[in-house]
């Protein structure tokens, strides 16, 4: 056909397209080169999580957006450092238990103002606590399961009466309940669904500007420790994924981040060794949950065999890039919970021992079939499903390691990679065999043990359990938890914890694997004073609240 010469007059549509796109991009990138590389910034940029655009809600009791609210804008009465388990007075200058431990009296700090200039008083504290009673949807820590009444005898005193002695409440009450201004929140209607678009708090920052892609907080001049605030502005850009967040961090535009990345030394630190740092202190324990309501996981020998067969060293090094050290068999997070570590378990460590695992199975009547898989007396094969979350790449690698360890022992494991909500649902409902999951940390080992082991946090299979997903029901453990909770005497509490540690070691209600860390990367080119191994003044992640406020107050301009 003659027409084939046609194109010769216009050579290369494709290259023309490419060239024009290139030209446009050059032009646009040329516009971009200004305003970068400002040396002394008066702000820091924070990436606490990558969960997409923001919604303009600063309600500290609304779980959809906590980072830009808890701590930085709204404050608590006390500050609990989960790292060393110390307590610092904050909006309260002190607290006092009655002798029978059924009453806590807080002394409220005077001279504290809301960011709109109104004074903060015991009235606001009483109002906030009663609001949680009125709207149970806000009572995320179940305070009113324990509290009977809250009163303010005078502007600087708040008296909280409890149904019964329950000392762990001090953390949720003093350390995790964010104070709201009565003069604003008393007129907002249903406070649990109130957006609080223009927050008024007592904290070091207030809202400067909001777009779904960037929240900017600026210094609150009415803050009660205003002289400590050296960071003028805190910026929270929105990220959809770790990928772009990590590139932003690696390019030096992020000062404070909480991102999991496999080879951080190479991808981040080596890029600017003088300024780029990371530190992953332990938060809680990554457990292999075993469904003890189900055969064969109700057999201690099977749980022991599982635990003995797992190569935790490999889990730590390969799956978690060496960031997460091995967990203590006692279920204690070290070094945080050091003072509750029973001396007899202080040096106890997990070691992989396939022979011992085989002995365990043999002692329980399991025999290996011709296919190399153990079966019980009735010929039922030892076969199980290991649940793990899609997209949690480190956990998936870990699950594969566990599966191959158990296969080597003679247990058939099917790694079941499912969505996060399906995984959570299986745990809650008890429709799992074994599953990887974190635990619920607090400023003492009580919190992990209470969530993990208390029978009231469990439920029959088919009903939703709060947190005791493995469904451990042991009245002795409940009594030990009560012993801890009904006392504020360290020796009594230590004794209670030692009893539970013994259960963890001897009965393996859940199988500890590794310490779960706080993810934490920081850049020292603009600001110094970040928490590190020698300065654990607060949990360092921007998603640890209200620790985020404490960290910001420690920052100083780099000289």
């Amino acid at each position, binding site marked *: 056909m003659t027409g084939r010469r046609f194109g010769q007059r216009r050579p290369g549509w494709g290259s023309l397209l490419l060239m024009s796109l290139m030209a446009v991009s050059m032009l646009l990138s040329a516009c971009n080169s200004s305003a970068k590389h400002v040396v002394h910034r008066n702000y820091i940029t924070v990436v606490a999580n990558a969960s997409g655009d923001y919604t303009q809600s600063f309600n500290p009791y609304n779980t959809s957006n906590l980072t830009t609210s808890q701590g930085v804008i709204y404050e608590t009465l006390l500050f609990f450092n989960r790292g060393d388990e110390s307590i610092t007075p904050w909006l309260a200058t002190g607290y006092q238990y009655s002798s029978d431990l059924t009453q806590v009296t807080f002394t409220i700090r005077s001279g504290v103002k809301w960011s709109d200039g109104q004074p903060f008083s015991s009235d606001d504290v009483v109002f906030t606590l009663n609001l949680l009673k009125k709207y149970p949807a806000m009572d995320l*820590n179940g305070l009113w399961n324990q509290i009977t009444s809250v009163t303010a005898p005078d502007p600087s005193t708040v008296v909280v009466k409890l149904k019964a002695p329950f000392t762990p409440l001090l953390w949720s009450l003093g350390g995790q309940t964010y104070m709201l201004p009565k003069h604003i929140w008393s007129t907002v209607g249903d406070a649990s669904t109130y957006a609080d678009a223009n927050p008024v708090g007592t904290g070091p920052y207030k809202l400067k500007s909001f777009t779904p892609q960037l929240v900017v907080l600026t210094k609150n001049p009415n803050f009660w420790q205003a002289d400590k605030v050296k960071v003028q502005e805190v910026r929270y850009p929105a990220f959809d994924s770790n*990928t772009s967040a990590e590139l932003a961090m*690696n390019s030096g535009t992020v000062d404070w981040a909480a991102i999991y990345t496999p080879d951080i030394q190479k991808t981040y630190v080596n890029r600017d060794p003088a300024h780029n740092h990371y530190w992953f202190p332990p938060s809680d324990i990554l457990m292999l949950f075993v469904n003890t309501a189900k055969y064969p996981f109700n057999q201690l020998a099977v749980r022991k065999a599982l635990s003995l067969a797992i190569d935790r060293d490999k889990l730590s090094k390969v799956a978690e890039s060496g960031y997460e050290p091995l967990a203590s068999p006692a279920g204690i997070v070290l070094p945080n919970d050091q003072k509750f570590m029973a001396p007899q378990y202080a040096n106890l460590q997990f070691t992989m021992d396939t022979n011992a695992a085989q002995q365990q199975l043999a002692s329980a009547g399991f025999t290996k079939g011709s296919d190399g898989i153990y079966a019980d007396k009735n010929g039922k094969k030892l076969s199980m499903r290991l649940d793990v979350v899609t997209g949690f790449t480190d956990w998936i690698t870990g699950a594969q390691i566990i599966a191959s360890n158990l296969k080597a022992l003679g247990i058939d494991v099917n790694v079941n990679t499912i969505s996060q909500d399906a995984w959570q649902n299986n745990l809650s409902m008890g429709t799992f065999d074994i599953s990887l999951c974190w635990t619920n940390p607090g400023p003492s080992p009580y919190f992990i043990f209470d969530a993990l082991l208390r029978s009231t946090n469990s439920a029959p299979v088919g009903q939703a359990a709060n947190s005791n997903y493995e469904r451990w029901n042991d009245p002795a453990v409940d009594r030990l938890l009560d012993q801890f909770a009904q006392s504020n005497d360290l020796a009594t509490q230590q004794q209670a914890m030692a009893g539970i540690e013994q259960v963890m070691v001897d009965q393996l209600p859940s199988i500890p694997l590794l310490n779960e860390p706080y993810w934490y990367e920081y850049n020292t080119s603009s600001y110094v004073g970040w928490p590190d191994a020698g300065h654990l003044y607060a949990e360092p992640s921007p998603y640890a609240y209200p620790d985020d406020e404490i960290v910001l107050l420690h920052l100083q301009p780099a000289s």
Partner: protein
Amino acid sequence: MRHLLRRAAFYAVALWVAVTLNFVIPRLSPGNPAQAMLARLHGKASPQAIHALEILFGVNTHASLWEQYVQYLGNLLHGDLGVSVTYLPTPVSQVITRDLFWTLTLVGVTLVISFVIGTLLGALVAWRHGSALDSILPPMFTFLSAIPYFWVALIFLYVFGFTLGWFPIYGGYDADTTTPGMNLDFIVSALQHAVLPAFTIIIGSIAGWILGMRNTMITTLAEDYVLMAEAKGLPERRIMLTYAARNAILPNITSFALSLGFVVSGALLTEIVFSYPGIGYALLQAVENHDYSLIEGIFLLIVIAVLAANFLADLAYVVLDPRVRHERGR
């Protein structure tokens, strides 16, 4: 007129079916919003949090599924899409309008660009069937679009955004220095931020248009009327565009209309890689969080857009294809 009424009835039934499925399907998956939120908190919540969250999200309300369905239809009729759980307490309509602008501009514009360029290139390579251009372009673009989009996007982001620094790494605009609105700074910044995402989308989708057009065009070129046009000595450009391309473009128009409908569903992978604002990521979040209202709202939007686009395609056929016009005229 009767034809038009029949079409309208068809669209109404399709809409009702879609809306109903939209209600049923999200509720079939296990779990609920409270559990999903608990999982999102990564253990940084007390065991009691689940009860508070269930109250907050209205889980375990004792209304039967049927009552919920009636209420849902009623709310829809009043234009009330409900409140998003993911972005509590923001209404779904606000979440959608927040993200729709970005999605419409990015996905819409790239769709038009890749449709126009792809179709023209397809016509051209078919016209020059067997030439060097024909043996290079389609395989090249097929190769490019065969590479998983995620990977291409990451490479572009890494090379042009991170290593060379020509383009921004994340976001829809520079939120640090510009404010959204009709001002030059914002528009320039938004354009800068859109180049890489747009370019990767075009690279990923253009091969389909090229191949579709090329293949139908080659069939068309063998038709007698094209030969006759050549015999009459008409200019080449006119033969190519008015005789061959006009007839060959019909299948491409259909898929263009369908794609146009799906524009509102966003470009999920693009949004994830470039942290670009848009509907796709909101939909993903909604699904992960059992955010029924938001899922329903976004799917409703998609359904309406797809039906509308189909209707437009019907109309376009009437204009482009005399045979359709003729049949309906009778």
